[in-house]
């Protein structure tokens, strides 16, 4: 019997084995956001069932809400009604809601970490595919649909099958400017956008262990774009330091008990997997996507690949379609492409350190006249901290917009849109056709590169010698 960290977490949550080999899994923490709340709660209501454990469920308004300074709600027609229902349902059932007025409001996966809702060893289910973000804390976490959310509300359980395990080892020491975003984009390029299908991915290796908790969340966040819905990192002391004192984390004696439990849980695990991918990342440069899938990625100093070199016909057609959509050609250098929009934000890259790093690039400079650049912090707490450090002044003085927290231009559901046929350099997680706006051309990058592109008005490498 294998005894990996995944095995330990999974087995500790099995309530019952179901007929077909799937398991009934206990849900320790459940999070919902505004796109699902109205339907999930009204379905429970109409069925006459109860919300089994309202104290273990949280609801966050993040996708639909406006983010411009001075916002009062949403700018999307019809969305206020859904937000009002969310408020009423959560009040009726006794579920804690993080609305825009809440001191701890933010993006769902940022709030769950920041508030200590997600903890090592716990199952955390959220009705959003980027639930994998908090796997960085040693949490067993994945995303659900609305019907599964309804199931959790009514039963505090989910029916699921244990995935296979892929171990990804990032080895080596990272070059200057190369961080979590580059590692995950590189991995997606390496195994492909469906390379992780059927797997949970556990990350380890010397380069991985050198990352901060915030960076590890960036890495785990885009595991979804590698086709795996579960990301895992065995917790270490950095995790416990990060979580201590957070609002929903245990305190006092219970904290000591919990940490002892977590240390034991993470110790002497089998470090094996059904597939092992080892990547030496010492020579890796900053990454950027050139196409319409996160797997279409190259080094910032690289050139757009040539579809003629692609033997598979269907893949070749995909590349050609992506090139046409993105307005790039084979052999073109990615650097130098004109940029009209820059977005720094999202559950991938809107934490305080992301903002600090972006601010260092723009400090004392001006954004190019041709660029609209917006910075959207991941939570109200992050925004406040950034303002205490004066980061807002740096962005504003450079001619960037400084917004309130929310998903904003990543999900692009709240009205924050990239204009049609324009190019956006974005710290978010998806560059699909139309994701950030109709015919929007998105390039996924780290916060530093996004900031550098805003200043130069072109795709550029801030570390170029």
């Amino acid at each position, binding site marked *: 019997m294998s005894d990996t960290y995944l095995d330990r977490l999974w087995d500790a949550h099995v309530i019952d084995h179901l007929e077909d080999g799937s398991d009934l899994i206990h849900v320790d923490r459940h999070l919902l956001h505004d796109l699902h709340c109205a339907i999930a709660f009204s379905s429970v209501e109409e069925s006459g*069932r109860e919300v089994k454990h309202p104290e273990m469920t949280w609801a966050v308004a993040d996708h639909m809400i406006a983010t411009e300074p001075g916002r009062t709600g949403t700018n999307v027609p019809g969305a206020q009604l859904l937000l009002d229902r969310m408020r009423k349902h959560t009040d009726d059932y006794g579920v804690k809601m993080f609305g825009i007025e809440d001191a701890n409001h933010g993006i769902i996966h940022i709030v769950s970490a920041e508030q200590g809702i997600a903890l090592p060893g716990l199952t955390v289910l959220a009705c959003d595919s980027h639930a994998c973000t908090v796997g960085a804390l040693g949490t067993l976490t994945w995303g659900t649909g609305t019907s599964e959310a309804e199931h959790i509300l009514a039963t505090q359980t989910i029916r699921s099958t244990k995935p296979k395990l892929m171990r990804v080892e990032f080895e080596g020491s990272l070059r200057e400017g190369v961080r979590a975003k580059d590692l995950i984009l590189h991995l997606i390029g390496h195994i492909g956008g469906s390379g992780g299908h059927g797997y949970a991915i556990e990350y380890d290796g010397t380069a991985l262990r050198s990352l901060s908790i915030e960076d590890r969340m960036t890495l785990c966040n885009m595991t979804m774009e590698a086709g795996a819905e579960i990301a895992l990192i065995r917790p270490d002391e950095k995790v416990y330091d990060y979580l201590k004192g957070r*609002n*929903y984390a245990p305190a006092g004696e219970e904290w000591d008990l919990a940490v002892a*439990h977590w240390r034991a849980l993470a110790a002497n695990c089998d470090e094996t997997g059904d597939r092992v991918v080892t990547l030496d990342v010492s020579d890796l440069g900053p990454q950027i996507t050139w196409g319409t899938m996160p797997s279409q990625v190259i080094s910032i100093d690289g050139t757009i690949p040539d579809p003629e070199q692609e033997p598979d016909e269907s893949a070749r057609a995909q590349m050609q379609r992506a090139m046409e959509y993105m307005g790039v050609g084979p052999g073109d250098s990615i650097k130098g492409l004109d940029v009209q929009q820059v977005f720094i934000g999202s559950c991938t890259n809107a934490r305080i350190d992301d903002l600090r790093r972006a601010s260092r690039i723009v400090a004392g400079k001006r954004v190019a006249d041709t660029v609209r650049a917006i910075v959207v912090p991941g939570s109200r707490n992050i925004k406040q901290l950034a303002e205490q450090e004066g980061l807002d002044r740096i962005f504003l003085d450079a001619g960037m917009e400084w917004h309130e927290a929310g998903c904003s231009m990543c999900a692009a559901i709240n009205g924050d849109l990239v204009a049609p046929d324009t190019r956006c350099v974005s710290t978010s997680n998806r560059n699909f056709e139309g994701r950030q706006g109709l015919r929007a051309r998105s390039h996924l990058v780290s916060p530093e590169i996004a900031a550098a592109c805003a200043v130069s008005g072109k795709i550029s490498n801030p570390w170029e010698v």
Partner: protein
Amino acid sequence: MKPFENFRGIAMPMMRPDIDTEQMINRDFLITASRKGLSKGLFHDLRYRNGEKQADFVMNLPQYRDAKVLIGGPNFASGSSREHAVWAVVDYGIGAVIAPSYGVHFYRNALKNGLLPVILPLADVAEIAAAVEASNGSCEVAVSLTEQTVKLDNGKEYAFEIHSEAKEALLAGLDDIERTLRRSTRISAFQAKDRLERPWVYLSKGQAPTEISPE
């Protein structure tokens, strides 16, 4: 959930790989409090451009208007977990999708909504799509969940695998929640034991956190 019934109908081929759920249903149709009526948003941005119907997009071809089966490429309906993609497909009148592989969320969401996601090898799916296209849509497809087969009007037959529990649930239209609630005693027993080992997991009802600012 309505029990799944075997059926025969027009199949619509859409073999491009990696079609994601955002292409299936865009942002404008997510603001809804209902699972119904979303077919108008299905593949909206591929059906229309600048308000104009795209005549060459498969859904706009008259022969596929009443399609009951959707034939998809590898990694079909990947990306965002939005269940709206499944609701839109179901609302359009599609009863089964045939593809080599699916986005994980779409697959699970489909089963929760009575939509059958058939998995067949890429070569078979391509063959079915080619037969349908060659016949200009007139080669219909019969989907039998009971027999686990897809049969074409041209006589070709393909067998597919599906989890026995998923099959049973679809055929009976079983409600997952009802089935799980029958195990309430097991769930309570699990929680009672777990609470002793991991007391920090179990918060008290109405427990208000102290307002500490992080960092």
